């Protein structure tokens, strides 16, 4: 610790603190413009000048100057105030004073400081900037006339996002913040640059002219897209979500969001939202009252009580914990069916079966904070960035700032594989388990296994015939990777799971867990396995038992049952099996066939269109409750706007139905949380009040066990390409299709080919192509890139048109032919 005096106050701070940090620690505010706690110091704006007794004669920038023992600092002498005024006057020289039409007004550091320092005249005059405004994309407006050259946008895009869209271009008075060839912005559209821009140079276009910043109501909540569980603040007015408000103190991610979180909120107030119940009459869905709709559903469900095996229910892991609890209680408890599931059954198996077998608990033993504490990250599939972008930011930071080693085992390349020092092992599609088995064998063969691991002999036998060859990589690569992993003091394996990744199943979780257990890299900080559930509450769905527990049917068996008539009543809460479950034709046929289907959803999805009753449900912004993120953090979701139209939350819907058929009835969702806390062990003792703004990371007790994993053989088919499905960076499930932001950046389905395959098939970027498998064919636009290796083709699964599930059937890899339409 270093001791110093600031404005007469004694303060002791860490030795790597700056004067700015020290002042902040004792509650003294030094004005800043170019400084940001998340970024490397820049020291460009001179707003933070202070006086240091020991460095008399000049003013010192507080944001870049480290503290030294005995320093005596003054932060607001007359001279300092004069200097800061000068800085502001110079900035205002070329900066247009268009605050009345600037979206940043009220939230603009320059405006606020000008006010605070009472700069009401300017001793200088000069022409204003005359840069053209970039309106080329519908998400981010770039008005470089308002830019004060703080460099924050370029630094965040490089240091945290690792995209590098911006740089200072030209020099002298022509210098400006620009892009490559001074062209329009064409990037990931995460909006990080917009959020840190201290002025109105970078704006969110969807929010343009919607409301004055100070007139917004701000509600803290949690993003409802992926399992990362980023906290966000919704800016609302007149009952509508108008924007997401950046708060640098929110969450582990300091307010950073990805494009879905930042710009994907429009689905809440989308014109396509369902606003009234629909009941099928004369073969057509028609508007109905809640009473009418619920009566039909109630009578079906009551009848189901006498034949529970004929009732099945699917829920989306986007619901709150309280809703999932009630869902489970209604179907498993009151009605008595075990035919309950989510995410097609396979997309949660890595947690519910895999982690359960390996660790004794259906959860990741590691948490998000372990990423920064690790020495080596072993990521399964480069897609981890696309599925969980803000975890991607964490990895960027760890690798670039802390020098954490990054190893990737993947069937294709991607943004992650280009991080400094990243080493990627590209394996044959579908051979992940084989690859981990080969790593385990190599650990054993090289004598790197930790001492006294139980079950070693069994595992040794099980992986005896594992070879690098089975994963299509060299023995040297495997040996080197095994060695690096074992040698790292702390190593963390990161495994994304979801509907796009049928191969990321229980066996893969076991295989990956084996590697961690074998080398003793479990149960310690910075170690273990982080299983990244796809949806905002995937972990909650596992915790609350939304999967068949004994003889019940899994999601795929439920679909099967709908097809063969065994299931007569199907309740679907927010799932969209028609687009997201494998084998679309089969799913459609089954759902057309089932006697009675009720769908509660925000939109008239492809699945809802087949229902007998459709109930309009609420989005996360219209209700309160909790989500549990992939790091086992339980966080509060808070109601920010009233329900759209006549929509009701799934809590209200399930609560009414439950009461109507003689089940439990709750006064409010919070009551359910109390019950969760007393019945679900991990949630023991929690209350919603205790969650606060930070949320609470659930404790986990791991009893690690080696569980041999069987690698399914994948046999490449001569003359065919291996189709890999997955997530596009901009989407999450099928809900992001109703957000304007994600839909602008990535509006349609596509198939991504390698340059070599594209050349030999004579396919160019943008061509319409037909992708054909044994089960069918789809037509999509072609993308040609460097990400996918020759012999493979990648297609995201989110889209209804050209939906890739028309040609997949749940196998890890589907072999297809691709031809120009």
């Amino acid at each position, binding site marked *: 610790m270093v001791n110093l005096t600031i404005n007469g106050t004694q303060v002791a701070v860490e030795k790597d603190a700056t004067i700015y940090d020290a002042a902040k620690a004792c509650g003294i505010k030094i004005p800043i413009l170019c400084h940001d706690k998340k970024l490397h110091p820049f020291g460009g704006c001179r707003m933070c000048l202070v006086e240091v007794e020991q460095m008399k004669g000049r003013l010192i920038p507080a944001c870049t100057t480290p503290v030294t023992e005995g320093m005596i600092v003054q932060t607001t002498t007359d001279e300092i105030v004069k200097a800061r005024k000068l800085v502001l006057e110079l900035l205002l020289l070329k900066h247009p004073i268009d605050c009345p039409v600037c979206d940043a007004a009220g939230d603009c550091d320059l405006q606020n400081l000008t006010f605070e320092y009472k700069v009401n005249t300017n001793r200088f005059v000069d022409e204003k900037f005359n840069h053209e405004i970039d309106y080329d994309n519908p998400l981010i407006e770039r008005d470089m006339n308002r830019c004060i050259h703080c460099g924050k946008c370029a630094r965040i895009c490089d240091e945290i996002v690792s995209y590098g869209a911006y*740089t200072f271009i030209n020099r002298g008075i022509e210098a400006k913040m620009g892009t490559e*060839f001074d062209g329009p912005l064409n990037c990931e559209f995460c909006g990080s640059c917009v959020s840190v821009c201290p002025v109105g140079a970078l704006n969110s276009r969807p929010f343009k002219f919607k409301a004055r910043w100070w007139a917004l109501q701000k509600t803290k909540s949690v993003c409802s897209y992926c399992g990362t569980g980023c906290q966000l603040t919704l800016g609302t007015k007149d009952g509508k979500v108008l924007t997401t408000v950046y708060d640098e103190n929110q969450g582990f991610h300091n307010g950073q969001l990805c494009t879905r979180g930042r710009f994907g909120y429009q689905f809440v107030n989308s014109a396509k939202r369902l606003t009234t119940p629909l009941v099928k009459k004369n073969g057509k869905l028609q508007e109905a009252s809640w009473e009418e709709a619920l009566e039909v559903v109630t009578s079906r469900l009551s009848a189901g009580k006498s034949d529970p095996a004929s009732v099945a229910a699917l829920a989306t892991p986007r619901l709150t914990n309280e809703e999932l609890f009630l869902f489970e209680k209604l179907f498993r408890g009151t009605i008595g069916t075990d035919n309950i599931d989510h995410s097609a059954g396979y997309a949660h198996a890595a947690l519910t079966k895999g982690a359960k077998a390996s660790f004794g608990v259906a959860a990741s033993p590691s948490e998000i904070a372990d990423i920064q504490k690790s020495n080596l990250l072993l990521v399964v599939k480069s897609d981890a960035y696309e599925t969980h972008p803000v975890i991607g930011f964490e990895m960027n930071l760890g690798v670039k700032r802390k020098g954490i080693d990054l190893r990737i085992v993947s069937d294709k390349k991607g943004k992650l594989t280009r991080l400094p020092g990243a080493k990627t092992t590209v394996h044959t599609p579908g051979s992940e388990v084989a690859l981990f088995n080969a790593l385990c064998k190599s650990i054993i063969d090289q004598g790197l296994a930790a001492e006294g691991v139980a079950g070693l002999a069994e595992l040794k036998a099980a992986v005896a015939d594992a070879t690098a060859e089975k994963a299509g990589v060299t023995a040297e690569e495997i040996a080197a990777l095994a060695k690096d992993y074992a040698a790292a003091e702390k190593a963390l394996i990161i495994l994304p799971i979801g509907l796009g990744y049928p191969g990321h199943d229980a066996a893969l979780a076991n295989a990956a867990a084996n590697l961690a257990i074998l080398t003793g890299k479990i149960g310690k900080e910075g170690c273990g396995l982080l299983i990244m559930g796809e949806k905002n509450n995937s972990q909650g769905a596992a915790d609350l038992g939304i999967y068949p527990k004994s003889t019940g049917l899994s999601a795929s068996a439920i679909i099967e049952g709908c097809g063969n008539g065994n299931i007569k009543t199907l309740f679907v809460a927010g799932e969209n099996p028609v687009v997201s479950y494998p084998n679309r034709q089969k799913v459609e046929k089954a759902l057309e066939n089932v006697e009675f289907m009720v769908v509660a959803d925000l939109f008239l999805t492809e699945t809802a269109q087949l229902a007998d009753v459709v109930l309009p449900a609420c989005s996360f912004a219209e209700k309160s409750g909790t989500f549990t993120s992939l790091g086992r953090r339980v966080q509060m979701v808070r109601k920010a706007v009233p329900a759209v139209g006549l929509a009701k939350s799934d809590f209200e819907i399930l609560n009414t139905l439950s009461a109507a058929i003689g089940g439990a009835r709750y006064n409010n969702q919070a009551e359910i949380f109390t019950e969760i806390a007393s019945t679900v062990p991990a949630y023991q003792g929690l209350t919603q009040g205790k969650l606060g703004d930070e949320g609470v990371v659930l404790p986990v007790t791991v009893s690690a066990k080696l569980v041999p994993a069987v690698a399914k053989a994948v046999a490449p088919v001569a003359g065919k390409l291996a189709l890999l499905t997955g997530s596009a960076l901009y989407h999450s499930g099928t809900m992001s299709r109703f957000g304007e932001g994600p839909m602008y950046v990535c509006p349609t389905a596509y198939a991504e080919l390698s340059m070599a395959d594209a050349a030999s098939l004579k396919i160019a970027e943008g061509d319409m192509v037909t992708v054909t498998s044994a089960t069918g064919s789809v037509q999509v636009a072609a993308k040609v890139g460097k990400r996918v290796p020759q012999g493979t083709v990648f297609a995201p699964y989110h889209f209804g048109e050209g939906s890739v599930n028309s040609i997949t059937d749940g196998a890890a890899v589907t072999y297809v032919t691709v031809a120009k339409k």
Partner: protein
Amino acid sequence: MSNAPAEEIPAEEIDLAEANHIIDKYLTLPGNLMPVLQGIQDSYGYVPKPTIDLVAERLNVYPSQIYGVLTFYAQFHLKPRGRYIIRVCVGTACHVQGAERIVETFFGRLGIGHAETTPDLRYTFEKVACLGACGMAPLAMVNDDTYGKMTVQKVDEIVETYNQRPMK
């Protein structure tokens, strides 16, 4: 400003072999971006866009950053330059001796303005600040040759002379 906005960059086919060769030479050297870009500038006479993408890919640098470097240093050019670079000094001494008229005359003869290149790639014209030979004001240079005490007639002679010179 001597750099062209994107749409003016000719979309010609570029042979990347030479650029790859230059990158190979410096690949493992720390701080290799500047020498690589200088090598490309020397060898192609300018830095063609495809070479920027190539350098970005192979050195794992953002294209935007390369563009930032290229626009910061006057030594780099983003569009092809003429075989003959005509520079006319407009520094103080030359200015008072009527440099503007010389400049205007060149503009008229060549049909191009400041920092522009003739379509046949024979000439690039640039106004520059003091060339350090104020005694000979007004001053013009063509590549490394200096022409002092410039007059409007001399402009004609210079253009005549270099019209006859070979392009290679």
